[in-house]
């Protein structure tokens, strides 16, 4: 079966990339410390904002921490899968090694998006989950089945949107060749996801929900956690995620038509 083949291939991907990453063991330790410090830093920044104010954009400190937790998880996922793989596309296209990927009898998007894995991101994901559980306790959220399914759906949708944003930018490499800095722009925009969307002015809020849907990535899942989110918002997020997934797929196939290998 096709699916089984892909699972088997993915198992091999995991095996090879773990083997190569574990060559740099101290690196993983340094990355762990980086993740912890960066979480402490953003909580510190948040505490500065809340120094003399009870609310920021209608969010209490304890509630804003949920956003931090979700951001940390998503950032961990970015560091584990998206960053190592999608920055590789740039290299593939510059050096013309995309030819070899296209020749393989598996889907090129699958190969390009999942080939590598960076295990140090797992620690960040775990850190994010710890923070989330802590938040669930201090915000006295009671866990039930509908809450869990809703939050799971929204987080999965966020991951899909995030993946598509990364994949879009990496795909444009086929035309522009160098997109390192476009990725940096995306990164700095994603930074916004650490804060509740309501704390920004109206124009920025529109920008970050229509043009770059960062609002959907962290704010809506956090609202679901607090039980504040209306059903239409969740539905909207599901629709946005589907649209993104379909267009990113179409865009990749479209872009491949323009791929002409290196130096040709």
């Amino acid at each position, binding site marked *: 079966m096709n699916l089984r083949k892909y699972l088997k291939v993915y198992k091999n991907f995991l095996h090879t990339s773990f083997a190569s990453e574990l060559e740099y063991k101290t690196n993983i330790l340094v990355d762990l410390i*980086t993740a912890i410090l*960066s979480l402490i830093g953003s909580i510190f920044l948040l505490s500065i904002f809340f120094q003399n*104010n009870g609310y920021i*954009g209608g969010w209490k400190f304890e509630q804003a921490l949920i956003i931090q937790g979700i951001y940390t998880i998503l950032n961990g996922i970015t560091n584990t899968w998206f960053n190592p793989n999608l920055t590789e596309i740039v290299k593939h296209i510059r050096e013309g090694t995309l030819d070899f990927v296209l020749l393989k009898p598996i889907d090129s998007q699958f190969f390009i998006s999942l080939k590598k894995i960076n295990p140090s991101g797992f620690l960040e994901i775990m850190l994010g989950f710890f923070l989330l559980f802590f938040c669930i306790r201090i915000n006295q959220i009671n866990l039930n089945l509908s809450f869990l399914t809703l939050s799971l759906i929204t987080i999965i949708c966020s991951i899909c949107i995030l993946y598509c944003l990364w994949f879009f930018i990496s795909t444009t490499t086929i035309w522009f060749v160098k997109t390192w800095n476009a990725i940096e722009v995306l990164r700095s925009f994603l930074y916004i996801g650490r804060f509740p969307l309501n704390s920004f002015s109206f124009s920025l809020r529109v920008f970050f929900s229509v043009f770059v849907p960062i609002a959907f990535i962290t704010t809506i899942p956090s609202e679901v956690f607090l039980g504040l989110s209306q059903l239409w918002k969740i539905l909207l997020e599901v629709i946005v995620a589907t649209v993104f997934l379909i267009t990113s797929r179409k865009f990749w196939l479209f872009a491949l038509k323009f791929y002409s290998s290196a130096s040709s």
Partner: protein
Amino acid sequence: MLEYRVEIALWAISGIIPFFMLNIWTNNNLNESINMSDLMLSRYFLCAFFVRQFSVVWVVFSFEEDSLMGKISPYLIQPLNPFFRYLAQHLAEQITRFPFALIIAFFFFIFNPESIWIPNLGILVLSIISTFLSFLIQFLIQSIVACLCFWTEKASSIERLLFIPTLFLSGLLAPVVSFPKYVKSWIYLTPFPYLIDFPANLLSGNETNISGGLSMQILWIFLLFPLFRKIWSKGTKKYTAMGS
């Protein structure tokens, strides 16, 4: 450098985080607690953006790539320390970045026309000097980290680690005045506030201790430079080209 105009424009855009932070500060009236008017705060963040643009350093990434690829070997034979090469690259890129930073500042003033101000010449010169000193401090710190490539191969992860305190403590995201007391008591002894907060305060006309700040910057350079010399001479002795 001019070959990569779009590249540099995008790089300039990626530095706009201070403006997002400004938006949070003014939109929630957070400035009331730190005795800074909206106007001064917007100037502060604009200056922080400028200082950041002209003090960004990436030498460790270039050096790591060159040393992994073995390009360092021919550089070492040359009678000039290879770090001069990187220094020249950085300076050249800063000059090309200048017009793009001006365009972003222009848009900033269109949206916030009340925050236009013209610093007097003396202040301007002093803040250019202090921005350059801030650049030198960061360049020295990163060069020291880059020399660790001689031992570990992946020095860039150490740089990412060091970047976190730089990001949060330098004043790029929040002015150091707003920090809680327990942080303010020790932060002025570290190099961080002199990287962005001090030059930005100076340029934007906020209150700051000019002579104290400049002398701290120079002091840090004098502390870091011998360290760099030492680690460089130790590292080059340790260096063996890849594959030997």
